[in-house]
């Protein structure tokens, strides 16, 4: 199982040891997608990969230590009906998340998405929605 989460570390918590401790304790894998650090907090977006119980334990431990956790079910919503396969988003995507099939229809590989929102902002028919 894999669960996408945003971990918010208040500045008084040092994020790195806390995260690695929890990973060690639960045996879960944590794939970091994006990190954002500013003066008030550090935020990490990533996927927790483990069994359901282990994911729960991972979340429980971090919560107890004061980390704010937001669960994300789907962050990038795509409407196939709205999309006209114009291909514009493909060259704007900084990763390999948006590609064209041989027949020039849009191909989504959202595992590669880093949530930069370039497609959300620029799609002419607004086929993408970002859900924070």
């Amino acid at each position, binding site marked *: 199982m894999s669960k996408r989460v945003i971990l918010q570390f208040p500045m008084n918590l040092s994020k790195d040891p806390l995260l690695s401790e929890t990973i060690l304790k639960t045996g879960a894998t944590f794939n970091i997608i994006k990190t954002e650090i500013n003066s008030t907090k550090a935020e990490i977006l990533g996927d927790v990969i483990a069994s359901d119980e282990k994911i729960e334990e991972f979340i429980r431990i971090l919560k107890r230590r004061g980390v704010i956790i937001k669960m994300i079910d789907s962050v990038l919503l795509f409407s196939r009906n709205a999309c*006209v*396969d*114009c*291909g*514009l*988003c*493909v*060259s*704007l995507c900084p990763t390999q998340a948006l590609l*064209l099939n041989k*027949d*020039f*229809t849009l191909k989504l590989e959202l595992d590669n998405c880093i949530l930069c929102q*370039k497609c959300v*902002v*620029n799609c*002419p*028919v*607004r086929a993408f929605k970002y859900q924070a």
Partner: protein
Amino acid sequence: MKTIPEINEKIKKGEAVVLTAEKMKELVANDGVEKAAKEVDVVTTGIFNLACSSGAFLNFGHSDPPIKFGGGEVSLNDVPCYAGLDAVDTYIGVTQVSRSLGMEYGGGHVLQDLVDKKAVTLEAHAYGTDSHPKTHIKTDITLQDLNQAIMVCPRSGHQRYACTNSSDATLYTHLGALLPNYENIIYSGNGELSPLANDPDFDTIGIGTRIFLAGAQGYIIGEGTFHDPKDGMGSLMVKGDLKKMNSKYLRAATLTNYGSSIFLGIGIPIPILNEQIAKKTAIRDEKITIPIYDFSVSSRSRPIVKEISYAELKKGKVAIDGTTSKCSPISSIPLAREIMGELKSLIEKGEFLLGEPIERLSTEKSVRTMKHEIIRVGKHMEKPLLCEATDSLKVIAKEMISKSLNNAIVVDNEDNLIGMISSLDLTKGLLNDKSKISEVMRTNILTATTTEAVETIARRMTHHQISTMPVLDEQNKVVGIVSLENLSKLLGRHKGLGISLQAKFERR
């Protein structure tokens, strides 16, 4: 040799042989032109492109008591419409933007809402006359309630160029966002599928040609605006009944930070009357080359970075100056294919007959640019205070104060640009006990040249959030300085309009 009436007879009997442009190319490649010309009656071509020049004429019927829009104000869903027609007619253009939502909702969105059978709010203010006393109306209407809804696209089928951006900032254009440093290329048109690639000399396409326009049957009513056949940029003016259109092929669009528009699907049947026509429909992407323009130069004479074929663009990656650029079409190839397929099946079923052109389109014309005077920076710059890197801070500070200037430009003894220094840099330098200009000046300065247009420079300054720029002449010597403040005054309210649209978008 065949004639259009002969082909129409075959279509009526369900005997016409119709191929999509792609299948025709295969047939010619495999069996030769002669055989293809004999066997095939019609080739269908298609394109699904942005059609920014389009709009629709709408007639609402008379109110009771009557109202006269003409001379007043008309809007649909808060998108202003033209109020210079008669009593209850209006024209709505797809690039007009909503007064409340800005470019997120424009004329194209109104047209798509109508086609999707949604209710749209009509509001009009009139001055009132004896015969037309009503002065205000606000009512919800649907496409069904209109007497006529005639879509007109004065320029279509013409797009065939690509663009990229060599600058270090993202540019928002009529073809979409261009990332910095050649990161992407966006190309318009779809190459070998498009009508004008298959009939480049207008052998069969002319006034009266019946076409597939966004699901309805429409017509070519003349040459398009900007018709430039000599340069391979011929264009068509088309019309069709909005009431019969399908929003699968008519989609409202917003080009972020540029404006609202519409995607429009057009299919044109090409009757294969003889071998020459058959041969032209065999054209392949490899043989259709288009220019890639650098849009970072915002002058009409944009430099061409490269000439390239659609075949290469469609591979998805192109090398420019050692960097690999990702390519995006903006014209939907899958929808062009659907249009060709749908048109083919309509003809095969006898539901779509060919129109015989009553007049040919010009193959001679070329395009003029707008007659106006370019406002060049050279005429609107000021005299700069020049200094050298070795000059003393104190001396220059005194001079700036006495002349009440905020900036000085640092040059060498031949007036080549070295750097710039502002009153803030000076103050900081003096507070930190610096003594020479070279210790506090900023290098890496963005510049303008005397021949550039003031609008271009004002945008560049806004983009980079800088308030002044040195101006260089053709020999790269510093000859002046411009400030955003002065340029903005010069450009007046037009500048303000652009900014307010952008702000609206960013707030959303």
